[in-house]
């Protein structure tokens, strides 16, 4: 099992790790697998293809996708500003980016909702001026997800941007590239893998997000009902097989997204390093 090492403590550290891991993660996960194996395939298919469930997946995926695209663009700008420019308030800007990690999602949820109803600070402006409702619509869900996803792209692009060697840019300028070409051909390919992985992490997180979304969504069936809420509804009716079926599809979606990211990472790495 293990190669000889002079350092003691393998037994105790390995034992503790496996014990805690089993109790908290492995046994509960096994029970999900065992329970899922008992589901009949026809019942499973019936549950996950009900129009209401399909629309739940659609709402979750589409809003998470739009929010993650917005965060990819804004994350790139924020990372760029934080790495390349000096300006007053920079440390403050850098510090508050992590707020969505530190602020409980339910707190973010109620405050975003209360702000964007047609009587709220922001909601009133949009409703009076453009007739746009934010809270209790898909737009509202997207806004909550943008809030949740802000740190992912910034924190994945920032370190890569910091490490880019100035010589590469100098060489490009010497060869006659202007600023735009330099960004497109030299800097962008360098940060693309980090951008993709930040986007994917945000996307995966947003699809499963519950706390911040459940308040602002309004939860109208077929309109603003997200997939995690459907699981919650089935659980409250003690319909565990339906809840498990919906959850399995969500796990599958998350798995596919993370695998696509892994594939993209290796193909981008190949192209950049020129190895095949």
């Amino acid at each position, binding site marked *: 099992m293990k190669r000889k090492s002079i350092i003691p403590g393998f037994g105790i550290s390995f034992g*503790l790790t496996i014990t805690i891991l089993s109790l*908290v993660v492995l*046994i509960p996960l096994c029970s999900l697998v065992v329970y899922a194996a008992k589901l009949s395939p026809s019942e499973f298919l019936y549950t996950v293809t009900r129009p209401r469930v399909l629309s739940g997946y659609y709402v979750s995926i589409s809003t998470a996708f739009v929010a993650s695209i917005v965060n990819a663009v804004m994350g790139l700008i924020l990372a760029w500003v934080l790495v390349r420019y000096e300006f007053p308030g920079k440390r403050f800007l850098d510090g508050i980016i992590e707020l969505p990690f*530190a602020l*409980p999602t339910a707190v973010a949820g*109620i405050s975003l909702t209360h*702000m964007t109803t047609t009587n709220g600070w922001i909601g009133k402006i949009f409703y009076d001026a453009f007739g746009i409702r934010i809270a209790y619509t898909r737009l509202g869900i997207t806004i909550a997800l943008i809030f949740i996803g802000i740190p992912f792209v910034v924190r994945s692009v920032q370190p890569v941007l910091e490490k880019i060697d100035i010589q590469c840019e100098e060489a490009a300028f010497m060869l006659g590239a202007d600023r735009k070409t330099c960004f497109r051909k030299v800097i962008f390919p360098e940060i693309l893998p980090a951008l993709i992985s930040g986007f994917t992490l945000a996307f995966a997180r947003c699809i499963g997000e519950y*706390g911040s979304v459940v*308040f602002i969504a309004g939860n109208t069936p077929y309109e603003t009902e997200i997939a995690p809420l459907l699981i919650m509804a089935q659980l409250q009716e003690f319909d565990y097989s339906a809840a498990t079926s919906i959850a399995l599809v969500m796990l599958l979606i998350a798995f596919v997204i993370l695998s696509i990211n892994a594939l993209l990472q290796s193909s981008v790495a190949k192209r950049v390093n020129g190895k095949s």
Partner: protein
Amino acid sequence: MEIRKNNGPLKWILIVISFLFLTIFLLLPLIYILSTAFRQGIGAYLVSISDEYTIKAAMLTIKATLWAVAVNTILGISAAWCLTKFAFRGKKILSTFIDLPVTVSPIIAGLIYVLTFGRQSDLYPILDDMGIQIIFAVPGIVLATIFVTFPFISRELIPVLTAQGTDEEEAAALMGAGTFTIFRKVTFPHIKWALLYGIVLCTARAMGEFGAVSVLSGHLRGKTNTLPLYIELLYQGYDFTGAFAASSILVLMAIIILILRLVLEKKGKKELDIKK
């Protein structure tokens, strides 16, 4: 140097976009929470905040957070120790399983515990005989909190221990030091800032967890309501002052966590620089 420094209006446009984006999405909700909490005056705020159920909910949140930090610290240290100091088969799988809980939607995290310990499970009669109730009770809340913060501490420790290598521990072991002496005198000084940093991140997530805890809580006022769940209850009962007052406690915690994070990150970086 010239290449990066000379940047005309674009620089300021990007900086203004960044400030606007973060002000609207991050600062405005914070200001909104505080202003709504105090809207009916400081007296109403103090009444809401010292409400019996708010205090009970806060105590439960603290309890769950302490459990999560304690368990995940033990797990984090032992996992980091056995993953970085030894070579063994199955290492990759072990670290994948430790990271798994954060990629799972919180609702699904709640679901797997319901499936494991719920009435339909094989474990239920055994636990029932022993008089142990897990779901819809405090142990379930604690378990869910541990689950959602599972890799937070090990993830901070592993990179530091990997960078540090095994030479020092090997030398100490050759000189006859035991496991705990080596850990206390050799390893611990290297990881103390990373450990604190991990604990801060773990605390932030643990005190704010909503989805998983919501599935497993019996939603009993004063018994199984954590602070975020109690906020939901108040909000849905249209007690906005109460909801935002309770939220303001969590906002304060979030701000403290952000500041601690910045300080610890700086300390950790300094430590690494000295080593280099």
